């Protein structure tokens, strides 16, 4: 069962806020899933018994740097930016 303290801490890391009812519903759902996930604790895996095949370096791409995406393209979905930078405008209560 996830505690309220754990839940609030995770929500802070996630940068998501919940209403009181949403918090209660989410905690219930999370507890159910965590309980379901606890099944993995039954398995014994002190040492893995299967060694995955190693991937030959020939099979993956070479590490060749490519061209950077143009700045204006990067900014195109953010309202244009300013001087090549993304902008977060001040929007306080008194504005």
């Amino acid at each position: 069962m996830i505690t309220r303290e754990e839940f609030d801490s995770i929500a802070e890391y996630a940068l998501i806020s919940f209403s009181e009812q949403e918090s209660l519903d989410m905690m219930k759902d999370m507890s159910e899933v965590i309980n379901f996930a606890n099944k993995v604790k039954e398995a014994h895996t002190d040492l893995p018994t299967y060694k995955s095949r190693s991937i030959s370096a020939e099979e993956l791409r070479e590490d060749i740097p490519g061209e950077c995406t143009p700045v204006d393209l990067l900014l195109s979905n953010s309202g244009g930016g300013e001087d090549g930078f993304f902008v977060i405008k001040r929007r306080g209560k008194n504005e």
Partner: protein
Amino acid sequence: MSNILYYSTLLRTGKISSSELTKIYLERIEKLNPKLNAYIKILPEYAIAQAKKCDEILSKEEKVSPLTGVPMALKDNLSVLGLNTTCCSKMLENFKSTFTATAVTKLFDKGAVMLGKTNLDEFAMGSYCNTGIYGPARNPYDLGKSPGGSSGGNASAVSAGIAPYTLGTDTGGSTRQPASYCGIVALKPTYGSVSRYGLLTLASSFDQIAPMTSTVTDCAIVYDAICGHDPEDMMTFKRNYEPTYPKLSGEIKGLRIGISDDFFATSSTETNDSVMKAVDFYVSKGAEIVKVKLPHIKYALPIYYILGCAEISSNFGRFDGIRYGYKTSLPYKDVDDMITKTRTEGLGMDIKRRIMLGIYFLSKQNYKEYFQKASMMRNELIGDFSNAFNTCDLILSPTSPTSAVSLDFTPETIVEKYYADACVAPANLCGLPALALPCGLDKNGMPLGMQLMGPNFSEGTLFNAGYAFERECSPELNPTTGVNYDI
């Protein structure tokens, strides 16, 4: 009958032009999509412009791909330059893609014509195609039923005859389960055989772009077109990808088909009976049935949800309203406050739940007993399948435990929903290819599906086995809302 080959023949012999064929499909979409909500964006001008280019190619060149001039649709989490890619989420409602996905570029290079973008669960998370901001898609066999998810729009469109084929995405069964619900074919390819570049990622080590078609032949044609190494996706393999379509023979004598009881334990009696009839068919054609054991398969779903949520929570850190996407219009006191409000308003509850769970499983105090343990267990499961494939060529199972559920189906617990993925999630966990195709109908006439899973890069074997079944045993599929592919 292959719809792609049928249309290709008509186009190459001049019996119809790509522009005419595209217009026919646009008219069908106009008529049927209001009932199905399979498409969230129809692009008539884009499609006609592409079709006209194809007509020029068809008039000049003798050797063209079977895909040239044939219309298709794309799930709306696949990027196309200059077009909105929304993932059916408020977070990306106005996001314009700045490049085209490699798999899509490959289809466009072969002359595919894009009709529009299809409906999905928000960010491809879900099993019923009912969490997206554009409303639920509907099953052409029964408009009161779900087409499955998350690629429900794709499945609905192909099943109803308003898209000859589509590209979906499969992270935990999201093309195969809707294929089963809607009576169509879907292939989740070997992880690393199709580039993920341009797929808006959900869980990086699970995601694959997947063809969804009405026949196995069509699926093979589309897979052959989209597979291959891509420098933009470091996980794609450099190897010789032998075309699978030319080798379809239906000859399966001596094929060793593995059966694991675990896959049948959670399925309905009707589903199991239908799949066992397929087993009887394969035996009658000279295949050999082998019992296989997958000792760690009972952990597959918990492993999938631990690792999947962990990857999702990491990947979704990018949605902060700064570089792209939705941004809150409420006042905020600092950057963190802005991001929190943006994410709270922009993301649905299913997404938030997985992000929260992912952070829980990755947190310092829980990492070892959940994430690390699940990662080790994943390796063990890969070993189970590897051992099984020493004794068989492919494994046969149901795709979905039941036929399509009602649109207003609400599971009693959140976990009850997860059991629908019991047969499909293992293939994503282990990177294995898996082909879903219809194998029967339930007592209400709703499709039932079977799944063929094979070792890495065994798509050819899967297609051949699927083709053998389809040409002799395909159930009679008549969706109540749909049109024939014949024109």
